[in-house]
């Protein structure tokens, strides 16, 4: 088989070798249409190789200058950028009234006091399993999204994508579109170029600074922090964090860009393993596009050429600079801008849209074999995605349930082990305990501590004197804190070792209660 195109433009050897009755070719096989055995066929070395590639240890970077494009997917990307950036920059400024004893910031990670506030929720460090649950949900959510719509996270919502997109728009705004940027890159360093670069990098820095600045707002009261920050009175860690995040934002979003996706991010590798033949991919339908040829050539030789006119629009708009026509690849973040570009070209030349389109490998195979194209929406609902969704929703529901029924009053008891008991001068036996009363409400609460199980036992504490000893005591626990109470329990002489129960009850409408069983030690009776 020879290339129908101009042979001078194609140095590839696409000769076919027949070996044990199986045709083996060096022709690139799009994995979109490759059958199972195709992989096996590719595994066996055969001569001659498609191209004698020189061994290179290092590869220079090819700068990506993506061209402006408009279309439904680009608009969706704009929308996602607006939504995600708004969430990121605005969230710390939302207020949420929690009364006088708690901060009024809607989302706050209060590291100093070890509390995490999120609207109506407040998480304590011992409830970190809620955060772990959220992380598991995020993980399974990614599985769900990936198996349903492929690498949609990479294409639309990943911070690296969003900020790269933002910086690419800055490039376009300052330097112009693709061609102008390429010209400027190649141009010598005149004062004009220095000025342009200066302006552009200053804008990079401002965006980076704003990004780092927004980050620290999540960890302290935002208005106070802004005030302190500009007066130079904020904690050093605030300035260091802003500096580090400014630098990472500028370096990763402004300069590294697609290199992060291709070389640094583990997610594309994991996703590669999670995609199956039913996952949506941005796919070049090579059975329809190949062989490529210009509109003119196709007119001269009808029936000899596919729909692809090799206009390179799909390559030029790609933010990671790949050629989607080479098949699914790690550099493709499925942002679908190539679909927008190709659809416009197809419309201009009067061919049907969707030469590059979201499709599953299964659909591609069927379509290549002449079957009906099916709507990609159908792929969203299938056992795998539904199973992921059930797991995801189940964990979410369980977390919400746990959050709803959790008690805001808790008690822990640590009995003194040394000495386990002692005699008082009147012969009664005293045990000492360290109680921790946890008040998770944002208001001070009176709590009643009662001892149960040991007859005639009386209790006093480090703040309640011995002469006031009784079986029930009331202490006030400050808002949103754990109060430590030293409790002394005395029982009359002759009491034997037995189980003692501490019960704490909040003295408010909730009447939340918690009980802990512990031991009352006494001398062994002879």
């Amino acid at each position, binding site marked *: 088989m020879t290339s129908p195109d101009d042979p001078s433009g194609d140095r590839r050897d696409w000769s076919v070798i027949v070996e044990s009755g199986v045709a083996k070719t060096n022709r690139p096989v799009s994995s979109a249409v490759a059958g199972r055995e195709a992989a096996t066929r590719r595994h066996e070395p055969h001569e001659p190789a498609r191209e004698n590639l020189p061994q290179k240890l290092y590869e220079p970077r090819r700068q990506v200058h993506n061209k402006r494009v408009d279309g439904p997917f680009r608009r969706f990307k704009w929308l996602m950028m607006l939504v995600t950036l708004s969430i990121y920059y605005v969230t710390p400024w939302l207020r949420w009234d929690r009364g006088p004893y708690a901060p009024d910031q809607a989302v706050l990670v209060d590291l100093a006091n070890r509390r995490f506030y999120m609207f109506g929720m407040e998480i304590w460090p011992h409830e970190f399993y809620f955060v772990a649950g959220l992380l598991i949900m995020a993980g399974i959510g990614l599985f769900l999204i990936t198996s349903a719509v492929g690498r949609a996270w990479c294409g639309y919502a990943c911070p690296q994508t969003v900020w790269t997109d933002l910086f690419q728009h800055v490039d376009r705004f300052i330097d112009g579109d693709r061609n102008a940027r390429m010209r400027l890159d190649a141009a010598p360093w005149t004062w004009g170029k220095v000025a342009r670069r200066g302006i552009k990098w200053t804008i990079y820095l401002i965006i980076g600074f704003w990004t780092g600045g927004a980050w620290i707002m999540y960890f302290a009261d935002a208005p106070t922090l802004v005030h302190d920050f500009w007066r130079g009175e904020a904690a050093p860690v605030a300035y260091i964090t802003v500096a580090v995040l400014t630098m990472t934002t500028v370096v990763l979003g402004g300069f590294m860009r697609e290199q992060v996706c291709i070389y640094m991010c583990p997610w594309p590798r994991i996703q590669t393993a999670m995609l199956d033949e039913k996952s949506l991919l941005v796919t070049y339908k090579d059975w329809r596009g190949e062989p490529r040829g210009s509109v003119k050539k196709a007119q001269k030789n009808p029936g000899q050429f596919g729909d692809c006119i090799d206009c390179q629009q799909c390559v030029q708009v790609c933010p990671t600079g790949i050629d989607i026509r080479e098949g699914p690849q790690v550099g493709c973040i499925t942002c679908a801008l190539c679909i927008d570009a190709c659809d416009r070209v197809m419309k201009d030349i009067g061919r049907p849209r969707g030469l590059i389109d979201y499709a599953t490998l299964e659909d591609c195979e069927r379509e290549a074999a002449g079957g009906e194209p099916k709507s990609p929406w159908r792929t969203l609902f299938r056992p795998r995605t539904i199973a992921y969704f059930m797991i995801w929703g189940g964990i979410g529901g369980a977390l919400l349930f746990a959050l709803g029924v959790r008690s805001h009053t808790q008690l822990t008891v640590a009995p003194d082990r*040394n000495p386990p008991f002692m005699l008082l001068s009147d012969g009664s036996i005293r045990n000492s305990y360290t109680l921790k009363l946890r008040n998770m409400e944002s208001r001070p609460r009176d709590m009643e501590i009662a001892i149960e199980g040991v007859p005639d036992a009386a209790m006093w504490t480090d703040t309640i004197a011995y002469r006031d000893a009784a079986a029930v005591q009331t202490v006030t626990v400050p808002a949103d804190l754990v109060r430590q109470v030293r409790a002394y329990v005395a029982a009359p002489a002759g009491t034997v070792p037995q189980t003692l129960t501490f019960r704490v009850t909040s003295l408010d409408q909730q009447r939340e209660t918690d009980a802990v069983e512990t031991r009352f030690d006494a001398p062994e009776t002879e």
Partner: protein
Amino acid sequence: MANKRIDEPTGVPTVGHEWDGIEELDTPLPRWWLWTFYLTIVFAIGYVIAYPAWPMIDKATEGVLGWSSRGQLAEEMSAAEQARATMRERLARVPIERLEEDSELMQQAVAGGAAAFRVNCVQCHGSGAGGNQELGYPNLNDDDWLWGGDLKAIHYTLTHGIRQPGDDETRTSQMPSFAGAFDSSQLDDLVDHVLSLSGKADASNAGAQLFADNCAACHGSKGTGNREIGAPDLSDAIWLRGNSRDAIKHQILEPRMGMMPKWEGRLNPVTIKMLAAYVHSLGGGEDFLEVAADPEVKVDDQP
């Protein structure tokens, strides 16, 4: 087995190894990765110059910044010390009688005292301050005090010690030996009487007479003791050296008396105050109210 070939769809050579059909592409590294690697080498050179790095025969090279982990520890310790300085100053100023009025300061004093107790006191009194009956170290958790259990009395005991030679103000008293003073039946009567004070034996007239003649001067007619001279209360449930007949006989014939060192001069006054607060907090500490009820005793007097 090396089996290098070119992967067809990507046009990239493989590294030549295969694991169950999975091969690895020999993708060239990006050039910036190389520069990052060089950067780490430059960083390492800078680090080696700036910080301790090369092990020499007796110690490592010091680095031009002069940093050391010991130095950092010393710095952090002194920072922590400085953070405590305000508390110590306040503690130094406040008279021990008024310490309880400032609950925050009291709390800090108790915490500091707990630390000092673990260093200086646990050797005799035990880590839980439970004392030792065999050796006669008192239990500091209970409500029985030989020399007084309010903050000021505890502070005085800590400062001057008990039977501390060379300190004129130390707490001191001596129980005489009664070896040879009683015959065997008298001794039994006396022991019975001592035990009867806390209801552990039946009282007898003979024992009561012996107690009144020999013991009541210090221990009181009802055996309730006398804190002025550290005479133990014999009528309560707490026995410093045991309540077996043998233990009581031993204590009558060959009395053993404990000795506690004075801490004045060995610990600074603030630490002694903190220790007093800690011991007072163990559960048996007494209020000044009982002392203040006596108009003869002012809180400023020596207890």
